[in-house]
């Protein structure tokens, strides 16, 4: 019965995304991220996927395609945010510093207006995380900003239907407080090592049982979570600022062989070569000024440029609400101001982030076969005057600046702080609100 229900849900989901005929945007400047920008380009999408991308002259546009004139527009992949807190979700509570059993998906309000604002900013994929007040704050969730009212509507699943996400960890001062929380950096690392060793022992016992149910250890939700990390199924998204804290994360990741992304990494510029050598990627944040907390006192606008030069895979994130998703394109622009190349700065908004959440086969660039997640811009993505005109997720338009309802969320105004109910089933304008 449950299988039937799942099958039905999938059918409905597919139907919602299906285009009756292909859709072709013609004449835009297309920034595919993988490959050079195309001045007079076309992109064709159907059934939620990209069919073709290329110069207008050499791209086959099916005869039955609905053509959209996109002259003077810029089209690029939907933006990937590797670190967001939209939806008001909290992960772990105050009972202990390590809570790998806790899932942020169980506390996210999918109707939060923040999601609509993110769509207005051109974001299509988010990694929504628990906070950084714990050494291990729980499981993160990867979301597609589809038109959806529930967490299930916007979750990203693998081929088996499993909901995807990473694991949030943190070191430095945020996760230090009174016991049972750690009081020092060494204690922080020791607590993590202790828990990871426990998970290794748990795995050994499972392996020793060789499938014999009577010999299996009791299920342990916490250790199961860590095992997913140790097995590489869950990437660790690690809040870390100071250079020494960054090096501690790298040290632990080498000891336990877990996959990790360094988040914020305010002082990454001080140890860029060491980070490059470790092969660990960085997701950084750019804010208007340094400080606000001791660990961010040496935050620089130049970090993106320094990491690029060192050869570190670099993405940006909003950490929404630390920065506003609607203005996320400021980040690559300010990084370019401070010396990063335009190419890498835009790569950092898309492909780099996709890689950091293991979804680069599906999203992050405009290539045939990938999800039809793209944004239509009024001009250069790095210009302050440019507007996100439309945001498309899996072939469906989820934001249209010309629609007054969407415009309200894009710029703010009376009522923009209220939860939003998305319309899934009905014709445009038929929803009753």
């Amino acid at each position, binding site marked *: 019965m449950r299988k039937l229900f799942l099958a039905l849900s999938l059918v409905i989901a597919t139907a919602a995304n299906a285009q009756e005929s292909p859709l072709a945007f013609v004449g835009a400047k297309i920034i595919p991220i993988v490959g050079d920008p195309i001045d007079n380009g076309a992109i064709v999408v159907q059934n939620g996927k990209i069919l073709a991308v290329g110069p207008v002259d050499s791209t086959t546009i099916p005869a039955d395609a609905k053509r959209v004139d996109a002259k003077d527009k810029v089209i690029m992949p939907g933006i990937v945010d590797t670190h967001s807190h939209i939806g008001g979700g909290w992960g772990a509570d105050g009972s202990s510093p390590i809570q790998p059993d806790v899932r942020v998906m169980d506390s996210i309000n999918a109707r939060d207006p923040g999601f609509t*604002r993110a769509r207005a900013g051109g974001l299509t994929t988010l990694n929504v995380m628990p906070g950084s007040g714990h050494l291990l704050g729980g499981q993160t969730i990867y979301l597609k900003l589809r038109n959806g009212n529930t967490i299930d509507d916007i979750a990203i699943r693998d081929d088996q239907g499993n909901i995807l996400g990473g694991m949030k960890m943190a070191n430095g001062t945020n996760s230090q407080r009174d016991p049972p929380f750690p009081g020092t950096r060494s204690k922080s690392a020791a607590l993590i090592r202790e828990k990871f060793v426990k998970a290794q022992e748990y795995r050994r016992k499972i392996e020793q049982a060789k499938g014999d149910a009577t010999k299996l250890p009791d299920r342990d939700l916490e250790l199961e979570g860590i095992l997913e990390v140790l097995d590489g199924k869950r990437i660790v998204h690690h809040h870390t600022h100071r250079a020494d804290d960054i090096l501690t994360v790298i040290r632990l990741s080498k000891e336990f062989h877990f996959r990790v992304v360094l988040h914020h990494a305010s002082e990454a510029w001080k140890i860029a070569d060491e980070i490059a050598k470790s092969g660990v990627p960085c997701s950084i944040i750019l*804010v*208007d*000024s*340094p*400080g*606000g*907390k*001791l660990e*961010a*006192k040496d935050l620089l606008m130049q970090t993106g440029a320094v990491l690029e030069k060192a050869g570190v895979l670099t993405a940006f994130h909003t950490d929404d*609400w*630390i920065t*506003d998703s609607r*203005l996320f394109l*400021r980040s690559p*622009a*300010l990084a*370019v*101001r401070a010396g990063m190349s335009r190419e890498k700065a835009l790569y950092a908004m898309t492909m780099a982030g996709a890689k950091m959440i293991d979804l680069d086969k599906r999203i992050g660039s405009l290539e045939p076969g990938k999800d039809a997640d793209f944004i239509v811009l009024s001009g250069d993505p*790095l*210009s*302050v*005057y440019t*507007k996100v005109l439309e945001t498309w997720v899996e072939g469906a338009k989820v934001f249209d600046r010309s629609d007054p309802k969407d415009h309200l969320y894009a*710029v*703010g*105004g*009376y*009522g*923009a*702080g*209220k939860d939003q109910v998305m319309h899934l089933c009905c014709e445009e304008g038929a929803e009753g609100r």
Partner: protein
Amino acid sequence: MTSLQRILLTTVALFAAASAANAQLAIKGETICTMAGPPIKDGVILTDGAKITQVGPAASVAIPAGVKTLSAKVVTPGLIDAHSVVGLSGYLNQDQDQDQLDKSDPMQPELRAIDSYNAQERLIEWVRDFGITTLHTGHAPGALISGQTMIVKTTGNTIDDAVIKPVAMVAATLGEGAEVHGKDAEKKSPGTRSKAVAMLRAQLIKAQEYQRKQSVADESKRPDRDLRQETMVRILKGELPLLITAQRAIDIMSALRLAKEFDIKIVLDGGAESYLLIDQIKAAKIPVIIHPTMTRSGPGETENLSMETAATLVKAGIPVALQSGFESYVPKTRVALFEAAVAASNGLTFDQALATITIDAAKILGIADRVGSLEVGKDADLALFDGDPFEYTTHCTGVIINGKIVSEKPH
């Protein structure tokens, strides 16, 4: 020392001072946004070291031989951040560098900003490198009356070097920001909007009484000096405006009501919902220093803010300035230049947006005789850019304050 020696020394000293002050500068700009008329294409500005002596097209302004000359694509007046806490709220955000708010008493108008200003604070240099040369800074929103504000230039080793107006306004807050929260909330005031307004009214009435008693003919019958009441009397006399931070429409209305009842000058600050009260604000002839354009929207009293508020108010003819505001966490300050940039992208023209951080800000702050535009006789405060100042990818390539180059590295 003989009198001759004394004279000689004095002459030398005078000469040295004069020549330091007279280090002339020439600034060439492909576009000079004077904010006192249309932009000048291919223009030149001359300074005598402190003030602007000439402004005009290159053809009409001769650069004297040997004068240091800077060039830029775009030259603007030094930018003004119309409301900030930089200098009082330090970037480390630790107890020892947070002097923008003392919550021991809900109303403390006697607190002077000059006594908390750290001229060495890193964020002063940070915003200066983006072209900000004047800051209206001081006590933060968050108490019914948190204290005084002042105006400084973003230069100098001491408050005395920096300050141009030691007392500018008195900062007040209405709405959720003024109310006491937390576990003792029920025992402390103000706990409601009505209580907050009642307390403000009582304080203003007390100051009226103080003023009356202080003016009696018999000096022996005058009350003892009271720093708090003295400050409030300056508000009653119209010497100091009350800078009222009010986000929701209900709180803006309370601010207007207070201004009318006591016939005091007020400046609205924040004004997240000010677009709902265009007629009322316009009729009251009250300027608005709008919340930073990029302020986080809600949840809370800023949930209805709009990036288009500046445009809406400017179109209605209401005097508007932009600000960096107050940040309690990361980032520790915003940069007014970027706030104006977002306003320029959300309904303001380039000139209007630039005015919100130059001449219009200067007028609201009462310092337009000195700063805010590039005109002969005004302070030689300039910001140089290698492109449209509002574009994120443009650099601020030079900053000049009081005729001195304070930054030449591109930022």
